């Protein structure tokens, strides 16, 4: 037993380096995709302190809008632009109808409001698009398909899916763009001011409403990118919403307010769960991936409750 836990996994890694590389690659891709979901949560939490329960359904809604428009004869790129517009309208609507009337309400009220928003979007989405899964328009959007295999030795093989490479590139570009937006632009600085202190930001003339609409729109764009990437790996259906909960351990790990934290947290969870499942999962019958991420998060919570990059909050009484 001790051999199976402490020795055998490492022997396997050594004996099958190609397989280990493949596991690392899959962990990296999963991590990047988890990070994309977590990013949506972080954006909204940073600006408003709201844990946006609706981020998962926003991923589904964005994906379905894109595919639904294309199914109705709209060319792929126009459908993409229109979907961005829809996410903008949604952001504006959420700010006007949900957020604005609830300013200064306790956090739990805002959380409940996003739960309500989740159910609204589920019903609204099903009403418009139906419940059937839809095929993501990967090729129509010019995203790569197929794979490249690297063969070495007698049985060595590492397969890289082109869509996974594209997902990684897009995620890195999005993170870079968001980083520049938040650090180098006037709106970005205003957003950080709002995140630091609502009252102080208001007192210097920053429009809270405008900032919130922008942040929800940015989260909508992240949701769209996530919907395209996850949709290409499987299909676009309401089942995708469940995946969003994978962002929870990522957020606990990286901190709810840190964009680099979402990326690093996503990668730790991605690598961690794949390596654990592939090399230790068999010892307990497999299927540990679904809860292993929470174990990592729990351990982090014990030692660093604010996450890797989260702000340490000290409340004096």
């Amino acid at each position, binding site marked *: 037993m001790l051999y199976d836990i402490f020795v055998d996994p490492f022997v396997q890694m050594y004996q099958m380096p190609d397989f280990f590389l493949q*596991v690392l690659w899959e962990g990296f891709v999963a991590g990047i995709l988890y990070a994309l979901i977590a990013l949506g949560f972080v954006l909204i939490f940073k600006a408003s302190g709201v844990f946006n329960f609706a981020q998962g359904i926003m991923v589904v809604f964005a994906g379905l809008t894109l595919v639904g428009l294309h199914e109705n004869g709209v060319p792929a790129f126009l459908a993409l632009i229109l979907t961005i517009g829809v996410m903008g309208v949604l952001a504006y609507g959420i700010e006007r109808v949900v957020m604005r009337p609830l300013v200064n309400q306790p956090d739990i009220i805002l959380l409940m409001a996003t739960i309500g928003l989740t159910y609204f979007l*589920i019903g609204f989405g099903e009403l418009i698009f139906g*419940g*059937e*899964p839809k095929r993501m328009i990967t090729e129509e959007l010019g995203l790569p398909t197929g794979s490249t295999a690297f063969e070495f030795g007698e049985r060595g093989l590492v397969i890289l899916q082109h869509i996974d490479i594209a997902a990684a590139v897009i995620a890195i570009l999005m993170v870079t763009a968001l980083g520049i937006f938040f650090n180098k632009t006037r709106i970005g600085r205003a957003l950080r001011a709002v995140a630091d202190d609502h009252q102080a930001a208001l007192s210097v003339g920053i429009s809270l409403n405008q900032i919130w609409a922008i942040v929800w729109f940015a989260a909508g764009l992240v949701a769209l990118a996530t919907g395209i990437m996850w949709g290409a790996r*499987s299909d676009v259906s*309401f*089942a995708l919403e*469940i995946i969003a909960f994978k962002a929870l351990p990522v957020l606990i790990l990286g901190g709810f307010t840190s964009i680099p934290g979402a990326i690093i947290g996503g990668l730790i969870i991605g690598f961690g769960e794949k390596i654990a499942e592939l090399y230790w999962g068999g010892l307990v019958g497999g*299927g540990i991936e679904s809860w292993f991420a929470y174990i990592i998060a729990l351990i982090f919570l014990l030692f660093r409750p604010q996450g890797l990059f989260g702000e340490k909050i000290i409340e004096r009484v």
Partner: protein
Amino acid sequence: MKHLKTWSFAAALAVGVTAVGIAPQPVQAQDSNYVPLLTYRTGPFAGSGIFIANGMNDYLQMLNERDGGIGGVPIEIEECETSYNAQKGVECYESTKGKGALVYNPYSTGITLQLIPKASVDKIPVLSVGYGLSAAAIGNVFPWVFNAPTTYWDGASVVVKYIGEQEGGMENLQGKKIGYIFLDAGFGREPIPLLEQLAETYGFELLQYPVPVAQMQSQSSQWLNVRRDRPDYMVMWGWGAMNPTAIKEAAKIRFPMEKFIGVWWSAGEDDAGAAGQDAAGYKAMNFSGVGTDFPAIQDIKTYLVDTGKTQTDEEMLGTTLYNRGVLNSVIIAEGIRTAQELTGKKVINGEDMRMGLEALNLTEERLAELGLSGFSYPIQITCEDHAGSHPVFIQEWDGERFVKISDWIEPMSDVVRPLLEAAAADYSEKNAPWPERSEACAQ
């Protein structure tokens, strides 16, 4: 102004509540037979559930439109949305059973397991067509549960038998590795005892790859395990979003598709179609006809699709899962018809329906009369055998559609039946005091 708003809101609420209060509630007409359908058009499994729901609904609705119902009595159909959730399924059951429900089709093994103990108490049969508790085939222990035309255990035995045939004989299974990837829920776990038994009997190694519901669309770990373990064959018990993801992942790791076989719930065109040509060679079991070349399906088109009286698109007609829903309703309708003949009553109740199902004999001739010649293997239910352990066939995805590639394959009933009896006895023991069968045999 604020008061005005409050009063307006209160007035609107009052009007709303009153409107709900006086709105006509669905009440079972005295001259109709009430069939609630537990369906799921929403949630993670809607992708499969919508096809089944439409097929079930359409066949019964078509009988209403074309024949005025069954035996001159219309069928009152009411759908209740479960989202494939056991708790919601039980809520649907409780909220509809008082309306004179004849039979329940849970379309979820999880919900079926919840309803089985209730069936004998409420005197309403549970019909789980090709799913649910395999042991419920033993009619003497489960007089109120029917799982025709076959059970998961029978299906699992067919897969192993088919693999044996591909290998040139069952003796050649010795030392082979068969991987089993399954939805980690009641449905997917159901055939494991039988597969383990067969692994012991024939000497193959059974490798298990559970897919939790939350991981349905993220299966790379399971398939990396498959790549490392190098099983000779893969068998899948998948549903909903799990199916297309699994087929895509199998293609991704270059698993030979011709050695990948799914249960009849992993046989949807959308499941294999997600991977397109990469899925060519993928196989699945099936027990219901595919296509629209059946007069009954054409009647659905004429009476419902062409007249806009259904939610079904013309493209959905004839697909594997849609036709499965139709077969489900054929069994319901023939159960009602048989019950009417046995009791001489036009409007029947759950007890009559149980008798009708137990005496069901869907012969080739009867299928032809229904406009469904060759749609299904003849189905006969007996008092002792509520499943019938009917044969199934294998279909293969050619890159664009499924093509039937085998004859009807008989399950290994000699192996399965004793195990079903043992499992039924075990169930009744664990759920003691399980009621002794008191219902007379209807045949």
